[in-house]
């Protein structure tokens, strides 16, 4: 037993208790379980949206990125901000349509808009293939955090099993209500802990932000601006644009739009979420502070920068508090992902095969699938090798492929036909898979100008997707009545 463990255990217990309490007074039918009865006000929607963004990736990866690479990490600040701007215009029509048609999942949205159950199945499959590695990433982060913050008293394997069991239990009982309640606890803690670390560490080690960045500039000239090659300006801008577009196509983020009570809650959040994005700035400060204080971490170990520096600076009990915060950053997004994946399988795969299933059966199946999803993710976390890493890198690019068909469907007259949307998504996803699995990027094409070489390769998949969508839509438009007529 050491000083850190009680805090980490308390975090897991807190999540469990809040997760169970969230159920009180609700009849947990499918609508309550998966979209909170469409009754969440601005605050709950805020913590859900923020809860999905501030994951272990933010906590470990954000600080590690700043530690290991410097300025390229800024892209994380930018893409979220732009995604919120898009959200102001994009989310209210999605919300309204989902409410009118009583939709539960992202796949439902495509089924309705394009009047195509087949497209729904494709979207559900793309979603699940992207979600499982994302869940694995959370579990991996959880294992690392508990092992380091607990000074090795609990192995990462044990931590992953316990974490998965806690989340699966409260998701089964309370669904999205559990996620929202635990997200409130998580966001309060992360706000306090990260802002404290981001201010204390630079002041403690360097005497302030200015002196810290001066010291970094002396030791590593140019580290805090973008490099001329590789992760250059061209990489930065193309990546910010791509990831901003893909932001709300994540199925668990998409489903949390449905939980809103009204459209103005979504618009209000577009005003406040950019400010909340600044938490990342403090995460970066921690990473920058670590650059000169705990040098020498390389490869995937750069993600340990925050905890290495905390362990060097603070008493074990406070490392425990940081660890507890880290645990919550894994559990909350984990709960959303599990619930979304289980809903997709039950509602969009099973119900397609067995259309006579009623809501009660689908709801029961979804809840029973939660521990199954958790087990699959734990299996990949503990056993997964290269495959899962490849999938992780592909996940974001996969869901981004849903963007063109989604955005066009919001127009009054949808240009894209059912066939066009389907073909575009398939072409885009196939391009992502081909590019990722063969390790292609523009750098392997030496005849291209260097600016183009630095562009994010995801641009290609999105372009292929869009071109196929247009061509197939034009071809099928004359043959059949436009899908938009059926959808509207």
């Amino acid at each position, binding site marked *: 037993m050491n000083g850190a463990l009680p805090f980490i255990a308390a975090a897991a217990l807190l999540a469990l208790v809040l997760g169970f309490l969230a159920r009180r007074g609700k009849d947990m039918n499918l609508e309550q379980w998966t979209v909170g009865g469409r009754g969440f006000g601005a605050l709950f929607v805020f913590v859900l949206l923020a809860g999905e963004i501030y994951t272990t990736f933010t906590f470990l990866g954000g600080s590690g990125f700043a530690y290991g690479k410097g*300025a390229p990490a*800024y892209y994380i*600040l*930018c893409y979220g*901000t*732009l995604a*919120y*701007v898009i959200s*102001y*215009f994009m989310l*209210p029509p999605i919300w*309204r349509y989902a409410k009118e048609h009583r939709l539960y999942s992202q796949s439902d949205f495509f089924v309705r808009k394009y009047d195509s159950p087949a497209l729904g199945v494709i979207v559900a499959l793309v979603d699940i293939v992207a979600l499982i590695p994302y869940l694995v990433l959370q579990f991996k982060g959880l294992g690392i955090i508990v092992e380091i913050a607990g000074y090795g008293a609990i192995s990462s394997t044990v931590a992953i099993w316990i974490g998965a069991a806690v989340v699966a239990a409260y998701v089964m009982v309370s669904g999205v209500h559990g996620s929202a309640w635990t997200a409130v606890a998580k966001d309060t803690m992360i706000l306090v802990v990260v802002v404290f670390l981001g201010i204390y560490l630079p002041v403690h080690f360097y005497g*302030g*932000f*200015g*002196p*810290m*960045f*001066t010291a970094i*500039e002396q030791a590593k*000239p*140019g580290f*805090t*601006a*973008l490099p001329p090659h590789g992760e250059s*300006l061209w990489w*930065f*801008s193309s990546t*910010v*644009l791509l990831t901003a577009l893909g932001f709300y196509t994540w199925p668990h983020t998409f489903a949390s739009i449905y939980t809103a009570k*009204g*459209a*103005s809650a979504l*618009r*209000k959040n*577009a*005003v*406040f979420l*950019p*400010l909340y*994005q*600044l938490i990342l*700035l403090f995460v*970066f400060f921690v990473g920058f502070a670590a650059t000169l204080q705990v040098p020498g971490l390389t490869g995937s170990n750069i993600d340990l920068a925050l905890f290495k520096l905390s362990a060097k600076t603070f008493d074990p009990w406070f490392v425990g508090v940081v660890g507890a915060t880290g645990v919550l950053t894994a559990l909350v997004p984990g709960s959303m992902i599990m619930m979304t994946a289980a809903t997709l399988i039950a509602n969009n795969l099973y119900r397609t095969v067995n259309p006579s299933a009623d809501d009660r059966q689908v709801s029961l199946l979804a809840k029973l699938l939660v521990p199954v999803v958790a087990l699959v993710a734990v299996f990949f976390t503990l056993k997964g090798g290269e495959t899962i890493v490849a999938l992780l890198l592909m996940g974001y690019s996969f869901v981004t492929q849903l963007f063109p068909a989604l955005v066009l469907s919001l127009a009054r007259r949808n240009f894209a036909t059912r066939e066009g949307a389907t073909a575009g998504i398939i072409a885009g996803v196939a391009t992502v898979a081909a590019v990722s699995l063969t390790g292609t990027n523009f750098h392997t094409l030496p005849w291209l100008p260097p600016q183009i070489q630095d562009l994010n390769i995801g641009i290609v998949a999105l372009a292929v997707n869009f071109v196929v969508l247009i061509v197939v839509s034009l071809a099928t438009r004359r043959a059949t009545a436009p899908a938009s007529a059926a959808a509207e």
Partner: protein
Amino acid sequence: MHSIRWLAVIPFLALIIGPFFVNRVTPFVLGLPFLLAWIVAWILLTSLIMAVIYANDPANQEDEP
């Protein structure tokens, strides 16, 4: 009224095109490297822009129940 919504284009210009003109470490602004200070300033301004759009959006007056 509708034209105010076009303000939303500005953050994209500032954060996607803008960095090409401000990719430098110095001068420091409030202790931050120049590029980082630029980005942080535009995040604050983005929030402000969205607040202006929100305040002028008729959709928020006739809100859904």
